[in-house]
């Protein structure tokens, strides 16, 4: 299988099967399709270019090892995405990054910010500014915000991935949004 043959017509599943048999062209085609998504997720999660590249590399190495177990029961993108998230979260755990503590009710100890405290309103959201603001969030808030708002996971899935309750996921998402709102307003 050549890269040109695999460039667009071949399904993810077929490429995955070929790559699992050691076909480097198929693996490269999968990389070409998804490396930016994997890297972007890693970069936003860790907020560090070097670390994000290392993690992307590790994810694709993990991918080639695990492709043999991919049966096509879920979409390849979902599977790869989950592999990436799990890898980054494992990286956090190894590094001893602590997600923000919450109470049983799902509230973070810090008080919520109330919009009425500030006279300014948030400007029209610039994507670059938003990316920078996300990078300034504490890792726990950042993870929930990225998984829910950027990657589109439901709270139940986020809670499952992060090992917390749905209430905690909702609470941290709200805190993350309020903090981002504050960070983006400060830029003006």
């Amino acid at each position: 299988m050549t890269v040109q043959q695999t460039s667009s017509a071949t399904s993810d599943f077929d490429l995955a099967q070929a790559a699992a048999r050691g076909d480097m062209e198929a693996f490269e085609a999968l990389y070409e399709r998804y490396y930016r998504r994997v890297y972007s997720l890693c970069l936003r999660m860790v907020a560090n270019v070097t670390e994000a590249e290392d993690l992307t590399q590790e994810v694709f190495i993990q991918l080639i090892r695990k492709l043999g177990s991919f049966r096509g029961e879920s979409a390849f993108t979902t599977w790869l995405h989950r592999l990436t998230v799990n890898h980054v979260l494992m990286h956090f755990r190894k590094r001893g990054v602590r997600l923000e503590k919450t109470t049983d009710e799902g509230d973070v100890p810090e008080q919520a910010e109330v919009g009425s405290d500030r006279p300014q309103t948030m400007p029209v959201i610039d994507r670059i500014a938003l990316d920078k603001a996300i990078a300034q969030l504490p890792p726990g808030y950042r993870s929930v915000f990225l998984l829910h708002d950027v990657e589109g996971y439901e709270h139940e899935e986020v809670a499952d991935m992060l090992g917390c309750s749905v209430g905690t996921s909702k609470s941290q998402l709200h805190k993350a949004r309020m903090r981002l709102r504050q960070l983006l307003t400060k830029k003006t």
Partner: protein
Amino acid sequence: MDCRVVINSLSDFVDRGLPVDEVRLVEEHLTGCKRCQTTRDELDGLRRAASELPLHTPGPTLWLRIRAEVEAELGNMRAETPTEPASWWRRLWDRKISFTLPQFAGAGVLAAAVMISGGYLIRESIAQKQTISPRDAAASLLPPESDELLKRQISEFNSRKVTWDPTMRADFEHHIQQIDQSLAGCRGNLERNPADPIQREMYRVLVDEKIRLLKDSSRLKW
């Protein structure tokens, strides 16, 4: 509803995750509260902007790094894949031979079947009273190169064995001794009944096994 309570519900509100009765209460509050309306609009804007964030691109060398590592890994995987099944000596050395109870039982049944059918065939061959001389039988058992190879391997081993680990040497000699005893038994049977097809086959198998044992042992790093 108090502004603080409404603010805490706004994320769920924009995500459409509030129960219907709470939605109604929040909407009532928003109608009369400009600041909470602004906060709601900003949270909603954030949510939308987040879902449309562009993808980033890593440095151009990333693929080269990944490819190099993957190719090395695939190379290792290929190297570890045996091209031919490992011999019993290799598996014994690697401690990979293990038996479960059903396997033992199966082996017992198989051995009994082989003995019964072997006895029957021996009786049949005696009854046929074929006349093949022991010399002809021995000559037809092994090709000359096998005999040569065997002698050469044994000679090399005898000179090298003294450097081996004593436990390994004892294991090796024990297995060689077992094969030699079986070979001697086969030879005796063949002298009595040169046409016995089972003994002839056993003899060939034992010689092959002895050669393989010697070859395998020569490849091992002691």
